C-alpha cells in the first residue's frame, strides 16, 4: 500500500529486494516528507520567531503550520498544547522533570510492566529525587495488563499514571480510555506514551481525556529528532519550564525572569525546524491515506503474519491483545534472536532483535531477548512469505534435524 511513495524501499541489498520489517524502530519516509525537508532548506531556511526578514517569516509560518496540523491530527483543543521535543523520550523527560517539581515526598506514580525504558527511568529518577514511590501494573499471561490489579494500585497519594498506548514489544493495545477514566476518578493525571500508536490508529486526545500524550516523528513516517508532547493547557500552564534559555522567556533581568506563554515556555533554544516541518508533512500524508485504509491493510497483514508464523512450529509467538498492533515478538528455543536477525539480514530482511529497551518486561517474559517483526503501511504479503521462507531456511543451520 502506497509503496511507491517510499523511495528507499525500491532497492536491492546484495542483490536481494529490501524487506523492511523494522518500522516500529523507525518508519521509512514518503517522498513528500523528504521534499518538505529539502524545500525548507532550499527555499526557506532561517531561524524562527526572531528575524524580521522574509525567510524567517516563511520558516516561522511553516513551523507553526506544522503545529496546527499536529493539533488537528490528535484533536487537541489548542495549538499551543502541542510542544515540539526531540522525540517521545524527551517528551516524557520534559513531563517528568517538570511535574516532579509539583510533586511531594510520599506521592505515588503508576507505570506498567509493558513500558519502554523511556517511560520508566524518567519517573524512577523523579521518585528518587522527590522521595516518591513507583508502582507497577502487572502483566497477565495473555499479554495484557491486569486491570484488576491496576484498580488496586490507587490510593490517596497516587498522582500520576504513565502508560503506553500500544506495547512496542507485544503489540498489545491497552484499554487506555478506561484506564484514564479510572485514574481520573482517583484524581491522578495520565501520561500516554503513544510512540507505537499514532501511525497505526486514530488518536483523539480530547476523547481519551488524557492529560499528556507523547510521540515521536520517526515512527510516524516523519524525521527522527522531532517529537511531540501534548499536554492539557491547564497542566502546561502550571508546570515550570524544563529547559531554559532563548525563546522561552518574556523578560530577563539578573533579578528575575518571566517565562513566555505556551508553547514557547517549553521550547527553549532553536528547535528542529526542518524536523517539525517534515513531521507536519508526514502527518498530512497519513491523513491523506486515511486510517480506515491503513487499519484495514495492517490488520489484514497482521492476521496473515500470525497465520504464517504457525508454519514455524518451534517458534513461540508472544501473546498480545486482539487485535494486535504493529509488532509481533517471537522466541525460537535454542536460537538466539541476534543470530536469527543476522540470518534474515543476509536475505536483506530487516528485523529487530534484543531486549527492546524493556528489561523489566523481558524479565517478566522470562526471555533475555526476542525477535520483533514490525509492520508499516508499505509492507505486503509477499514480504511476509519471503520472511517465512528465510526463517525456515536459516534455522536449518542451527537446528540439525530439528523440527522447524
Amino acid at each position, binding site marked *: 500500500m502506497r509503496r511507491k511513495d517510499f523511495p528507499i524501499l525500491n532497492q536491492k*541489498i*546484495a542483490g536481494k529486494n529490501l524487506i523492511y520489517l523494522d518500522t516500529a524502530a523507525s518508519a521509512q519516509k514518503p517522498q513528500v516528507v523528504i521534499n518538505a525537508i529539502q524545500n525548507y532548506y532550499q527555499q526557506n531556511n532561517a531561524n524562527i520567531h526572531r528575524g524580521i526578514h522574509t525567510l524567517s517569516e516563511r520558516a516561522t509560518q511553516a513551523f507553526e503550520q506544522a503545529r496546527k496540523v499536529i493539533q488537528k491530527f490528535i484533536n487537541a483543543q489548542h495549538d499551543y498544547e502541542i510542544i515540539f521535543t526531540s522525540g517521545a523520550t524527551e517528551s516524557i523527560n520534559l513531563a517528568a522533570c517538570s511535574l516532579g517539581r509539583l510533586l511531594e515526598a510520599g506521592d505515588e506514580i503508576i507505570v506498567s510492566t509493558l513500558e519502554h525504558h523511556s517511560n520508566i527511568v524518567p519517573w524512577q529518577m523523579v521518585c528518587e529525587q522527590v522521595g516518591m514511590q513507583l508502582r507497577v501494573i502487572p502483566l497477565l499471561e495473555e499479554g495484557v495488563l491486569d486491570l484488576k490489579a491496576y484498580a488496586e494500585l490507587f490510593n490517596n497519594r497516587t498522582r500520576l499514571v504513565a502508560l503506553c498506548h500500544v506495547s512496542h514489544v507485544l503489540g498489545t493495545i491497552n484499554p487506555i480510555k478506561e484506564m484514564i477514566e479510572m485514574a481520573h476518578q482517583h484524581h491522578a493525571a495520565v501520561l500516554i506514551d503513544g510512540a507505537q500508536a499514532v501511525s497505526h490508529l486514530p488518536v483523539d486526545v480530547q476523547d481519551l481525556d488524557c492529560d499528556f500524550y507523547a510521540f515521536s516523528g520517526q515512527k510516524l513516517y516523519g524525521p527522527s529528532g522531532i517529537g511531540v508532547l501534548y499536554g492539557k493547557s491547564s497542566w502546561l500552564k502550571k508546570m515550570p519550564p524544563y529547559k531554559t534559555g532563548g525563546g522561552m522567556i518574556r523578560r530577563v533581568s539578573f533579578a528575575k525572569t518571566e517565562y513566555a506563554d505556551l508553547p514557547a515556555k517549553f521550547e527553549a533554544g532553536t528547535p528542529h525546524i526542518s524536523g517539525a516541518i517534515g513531521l507536519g508533512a508526514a502527518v498530512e500524508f497519513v491523513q491523506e491515506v486515511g486510517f480506515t485504509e491503513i487499519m484495514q491493510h495492517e490488520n489484514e497483514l497482521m492476521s496473515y503474519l500470525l497465520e504464517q508464523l504457525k508454519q514455524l512450529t518451534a517458534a513461540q509467538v508472544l501473546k498480545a491483545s486482539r487485535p494486535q498492533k504493529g509488532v509481533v515478538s517471537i522466541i525460537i528455543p*535454542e*536460537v*538466539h*534472536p*541476534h*543470530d536469527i536477525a*543476522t*540470518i534474515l*539480514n*543476509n536475505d*536483506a530482511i530487516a528485523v529487530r*532483535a*534484543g*531486549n527492546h529497551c524493556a*528489561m523489566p518486561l*523481558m524479565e517478566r517474559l522470562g526471555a*533475555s*531477548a526476542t525477535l520483533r517483526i514490525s509492520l508499516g503501511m508499505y509492507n505486503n504479503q509477499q514480504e511476509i512469505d519471503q520472511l517465512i521462507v528465510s526463517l525456515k531456511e*536459516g534455522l536449518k*543451520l*542451527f537446528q540439525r534435524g530439528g523440527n522447524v
Partner: protein
Amino acid sequence: MSDLRDLYQELILDHSRLPRNFGKLEQANGVQEGFNPLCGDRVIIYVCHSEGKILQAQFEGCGCAISMASASLMTEALKDKTLEQIVALFTDFHTLVTQGVVSEPNHLDKLTVLAGVAEYPMRVKCATLPWHTALAALKIQTTQRSSII
C-alpha cells in the same frame, strides 16, 4: 553479502550448542560479570590463577551463538596461559574479529574460526564480550575500549 556459513562455522555452532567449561568455578579467584545492554548478552567469567598463570577458566551466561561460542573457545584458550600471553592473544583476537586477518594466526589456534565476525560489524561485541569480561576478572587493563563491563 558473505555466506552465512563463513560466520556460523560448524565449530562455532558446536561450541554454542555444547559450551565447554560451562558452569560456576567454585575455587575461582577472579570473577566478573559482563553484560551488553544493547542486546542482552550476559556472561560471568570465572578464573582460577596462580603466580601469573591461568589454571582454569569457566563461564556461565546466555546470549547469541557467537557470544557463547566465543566464551567457550576462550576458556579453552586461556588455560595454562600467562597473563602476558593472554594480553597478546586478546590483541590478536581483537584484530581478527575486527579486520578478519591477523599476521600470525597460529597461536590463535581454534579462535581463528571467529574470523567471519569481521564481516558483521554489529556482531563484533558479541565475540569480544567474554574477552573483555575475562580481562576484567584478571584485572588486566587493555587499550581496546569496552563499554560493556
